[in-house]
């Protein structure tokens, strides 16, 4: 630019470590509050919360919420909402159950029974198809997502009830049940009672890999003079994180090892974290939610992106439907009832912006476990289901209020 027009830059105040500390500490407030309620319930339940068997239960019970929250993150970041996921869980679970247990085609003598493995693929595809149908109405027909998915919620709950006619359909093959109830095979200790070394080592390896990855990113940021968290905070955060992973893995390994569903969930978390932070499509979804008009005028196919977030949500809801069916070892008309509320609450507790454009995978995962630990802890304490709802409602409100309050300061 020409010399003549350059004016002095506005003086930055406190661009150093002061603001840096503040902005980063807020990010980990969520992780901190998760630890606080863990300690709280650990004390209140006389140590039941962190017993290996309870931790295993906790993970198995909450896996499907976490998995669906990953999909919901994209839907909400894209500026929409999906109320139908609970009904899709029930519907896909019912179809899968009927296919696996076998049924006679109405009006004919034809009996259909399918092996569990193709059923898994079919169910995921079915979930995706349902998501695509709803996504089409939202993205291309421009009907508000709230209305479309409210319709979907009623339709698929109703279809589930009709199909199952009030019956439980099951049981399923053991291999299928293992999606939800199984544990990874042990190579080092073969006895049922011994410490599960394979699981422990796998957990340790994951913790080390995550630290190495984060450290590389952090040191690179330093080299490029990008604003990064101060060293003590970075080390502290990673220590807490590693301790959490190692601690949980240790507890799991001293019971039956790593649940299969934890491995599925972990892989999905890593995958979607990568998609949100590193990929072109992820960035575009955030742009869509941040300012749909500006994104469209920047040459981004906004309709297709919104459509895809629903397809993705449908597939994950289908997966959750299978996990829930496998866990109950049957399909029931009420499976997945009101899951959408837990999933959406997990997103908002996890700091996802209700107006779209902002939210992080780790936040959502922590938000889901926050809800899960509260459910679990209050159940152990014998608090009635209705009071649990009251408490969860207040926690949701408090979490979002704190978020909004922090931002306005």
């Amino acid at each position, binding site marked *: *630019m*020409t010399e*003549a*027009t*350059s*004016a*002095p*830059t*506005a*003086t*930055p*105040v*406190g*661009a150093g470590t002061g*603001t840096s500390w503040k902005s980063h500490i807020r990010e980990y407030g969520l992780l901190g509050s998760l630890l606080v309620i863990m300690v709280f319930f650990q004390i209140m339940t006389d140590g039941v919360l962190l017993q290996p068997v309870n931790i295993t239960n906790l993970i198995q019970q909450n896996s499907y919420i976490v998995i669906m929250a990953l999909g919901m993150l994209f839907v909400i970041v894209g500026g929409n909402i999906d109320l139908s996921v609970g009904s899709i869980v029930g519907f896909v679970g019912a179809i899968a159950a009927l296919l696996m247990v076998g049924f006679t085609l109405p009006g004919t003598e034809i009996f259909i029974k399918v092996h569990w493995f193709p059923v898994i693929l079919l169910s995921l595809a079915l979930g995706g198809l349902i998501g695509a149908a709803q996504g089409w109405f939202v993205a291309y027909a421009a009907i508000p997502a709230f209305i479309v998915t409210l319709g979907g919620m009623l339709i698929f709950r109703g279809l589930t009830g009709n199909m199952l006619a009030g019956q439980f359909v099951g049981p399923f093959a053991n291999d299928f049940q293992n999606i939800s109830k199984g544990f990874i095979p042990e190579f080092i200790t073969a006895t049922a009672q011994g410490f599960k070394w394979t699981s422990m080592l796998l957990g340790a390896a994951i913790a080390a890999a995550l630290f190495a990855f984060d450290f590389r990113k952090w040191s*690179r940021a330093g080299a*490029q003079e*990008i*604003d990064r968290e101060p060293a003590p905070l970075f080390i502290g955060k990673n220590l807490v994180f590693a301790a959490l992973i190692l601690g949980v893995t240790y507890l799991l390994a001293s019971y039956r090892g790593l649940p299969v569903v934890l491995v599925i969930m972990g892989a999905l978390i890593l995958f979607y974290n990568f998609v949100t932070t*590193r*990929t*072109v*499509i992820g*960035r*575009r979804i*955030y*742009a869509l939610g*941040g*300012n749909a*008009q*500006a*994104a*469209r*005028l*920047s*040459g*981004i*196919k906004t309709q297709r992106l919104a459509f895809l977030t629903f397809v993705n949500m449908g597939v994950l809801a289908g997966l959750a439907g299978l996990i829930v069916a496998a866990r109950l070892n049957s399909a029931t008309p009420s499976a997945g009832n009101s899951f959408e509320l837990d999933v959406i609450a997990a997103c908002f507790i996890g700091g996802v912006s209700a107006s779209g*454009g*902002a939210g992080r995978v780790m936040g959502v995962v922590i938000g889901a476990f926050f809800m899960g630990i509260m459910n679990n802890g209050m159940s152990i304490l014998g608090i009635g289901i209705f009071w649990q709802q009251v408490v969860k409602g207040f926690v949701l409100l408090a979490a979002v209020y704190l978020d909004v309050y922090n931002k306005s300061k």
Partner: protein
Amino acid sequence: MEDPILEMRGISKSFPGVKALKNVNLVVRAGEIHAICGENGAGKSTLMKVLSGVYPYGSYEGDIVYQGEERRFSSISDSEHLGVIIIHQELALVPLLSIAENIFLGNEPSRMGVIDWSEAFSRTRDLLKKVGLNESPNALITNIGVGKQQLVEIAKALAKRVKLLILDEPTASLNETDSAALLDLLLEFKRQGLTCIIISHKLNEIARVADSITILRDGSTVETIDCRTEEISEGRIIKSMVGREMSDRYPPREPKIGETLFEVRDWQVEHPQHPGRKVIKGVDLKVRAGEVVGIAGLMGSGRTELAMSIFGGAYGRNITGQASMRGQPVDVSSIQKAVGAGLAYVTEDRKALGLILNDDIKHNISLVNLPGVAKAGVIDDATETHVANRYRKQLNIRSSSILQKTLNLSGGNQQKVVLSKWLFADPQVLMLDEPTRGIDVGAKYEIYTIINELAASGRGVIVISSEMPELLGICDRIYVMNEGRFVDEMPASEASQEKIMAAIMRQYRVTA
């Protein structure tokens, strides 16, 4: 000389990362029109927000003395109660409510919570008469033009018994006729004893109406000029604003014009909501390599609609006509295809249509050309950072870093981010829609320099602007547009404001 109605003493205000005001002093005398000038980011709007209580007492340092007493406003309603009314650049009217409903919004004449509509309407009629607006109090805001909306805002201020009226860029989105009418109205109010503070980038307007001018630069007061004792010229104000003499408002230009680069023929577009209603009625446009082409015209002449319809049908329906790049037909039927063909459209509304305001400079710059910073769909952070830093330096985007949210940038710097975004996409032809609207003189010069550099690199640039001197200053050739048609075309060397206006008016005479 009258006593001061307002004194702001030693006002300082900080935001995270930036000190916006540093010990600013402002003295406004009763019954005068006091202009506040300064480049974007100089702190004008911030100062007015301090005054009106948007930033409450305690969030700034210094004293406000209004009507002889120290005031500590904790909200807008505190200051409005004492007759300090601010009209923001972005008008605060509810589009689907009527004029009367808007004027008395929050101030409804009522008895026990029940609105007295007959009083509201009769008072609205009086107020509309005072501001010279000939509309029914029942008319919906959305159905009247932006110039009339501005008058409704003023009527609304009058309804609140205004004593000190603050206008932030009141003519930014008005055409010349409406602007002139508005300024006349302010002079009329002055005769009736109203005090006005006006913030404006349009120095000719300030020179016309202001009694005193306070100039801010980088958050500090530079000086206050008394126009009653000193002859005032635009050059004098600019010098004080930028701290240097600005002999030429437009950078020198030596055009090297080549072959025809981009061309559209017989371009026709229908209104998106009213099929059959033609908005663009057969336009032939061409731009050569290295050429800067201007499109002049009044508001509503179809300039933005033309540009957006060419840009992948971002506006309109049933678009017909042929587009060609370097003589070869190109498909511009979607925005993706238009970008692929080498077109870029820089919007006139950078906040609503240009930026992800909640995101940082870095992510905004890479948005159009994300594949350019990615491998196989995975973004390379180092490359992206490098690109953003390069444009931040090259276009002189004033910010604490590339991680600053674009929401917190001044208008000129926001515009530079939008430009960077499109420059990184490396287009052949850029359509710039009001590229300097609401931007200060210094930043305008920088934008003009960028336009020159783009043309010098062999690209074609199409500039839409409502400021005719700007078109005359930077363009090689000018199309005059009216009612969806190009009604004239002239080399800039032969063009003048009078010729352009004459071309527009001639068409009216023919159709009348």
